[in-house]
């Protein structure tokens, strides 16, 4: 557990929340701790090869924040924690991350919607190395170009 949350109590564990609105966001919260002031802090577990935090983790935690706040009305902290457990290791490392603001989060939701209706052109991957393990490499022009 992150040091900052020692005085907090576990409020939710492995619980699904859903927001309302034009685009409903559903999110499964790994853990949410409530501090003495009643503010919830989100904790997300990740198992991966590298002890790193990615933008996708921040987006996922921000979606959880949005859904949890929308369903319960409770205040959720603007920062959260990503607990990274490396493959084959038992120790976990905790990373504190700043979550996206409401406006930034809405922009991502809107952009995704626009990508799906082909109103915008999708951008390249975060890292070219991702294409190596992508299941759509044969269909994707970008991936095919990278693997040549």
């Amino acid at each position, binding site marked *: 557990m992150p040091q900052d949350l020692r005085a907090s109590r576990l409020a939710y564990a492995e619980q699904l929340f859903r927001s309302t609105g034009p685009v409903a966001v559903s999110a499964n919260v790994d853990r949410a701790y409530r501090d003495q002031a009643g503010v919830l802090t989100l904790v997300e577990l990740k198992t991966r090869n590298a002890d790193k935090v*990615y933008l996708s983790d921040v987006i996922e935690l921000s979606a959880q924040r949005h859904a949890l706040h929308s369903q319960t009305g409770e205040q959720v902290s603007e920062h959260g924690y990503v607990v990274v457990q490396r493959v084959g290791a038992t120790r976990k490392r905790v990373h504190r991350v700043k979550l996206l603001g409401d406006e930034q989060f809405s922009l991502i939701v809107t952009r995704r919607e626009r990508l799906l209706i082909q109103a915008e052109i999708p951008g390249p991957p975060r890292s070219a190395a991702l294409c190596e393990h992508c299941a759509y490499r044969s269909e994707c022009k970008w991936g095919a170009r990278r693997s040549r």
Partner: protein
Amino acid sequence: MKAAAKRRRRSTSVSASELAQMGVCERLVVFEHRYGTRGLPQQQAAIERSRRAHERFYRRGRIASAPLGRCFIATMVFGEGPETQTLRAFRDQVLRRGPTGRRLIVTYYRIAPGVCRMLVRQPWTHSVLRIALRPVIWLALRWLSATGARRAP
């Protein structure tokens, strides 16, 4: 027509993990929406590994944060007496603060119900356990007073 309508319906609801893909690759988001999730064998193995890790994470979180769980063996041999209260206070105020202590709690809660079932069948062991646990309780009391932790409620 039907597929397009289905896509439109689906696009009004999104999961956090689907949104997170936006931080990985926008093309992947489009492909998964168009063709469904397609996993390579190593990705399936990673999903399974993650599922197991999440189960452990969930169990440990619940145990570490349980406000006042049962202290199975002590309750069985001492009842709800001061000895049990002391061991509970030691668990909550000392063991629960560190990773090794939390691991001990997890292990204890895993094996204790089985031990209790065995103890029910062997009542003579209760007095032996009471004697064996006395020094443990004494040590726990000493520890609690040395660290200034609250005594049992």
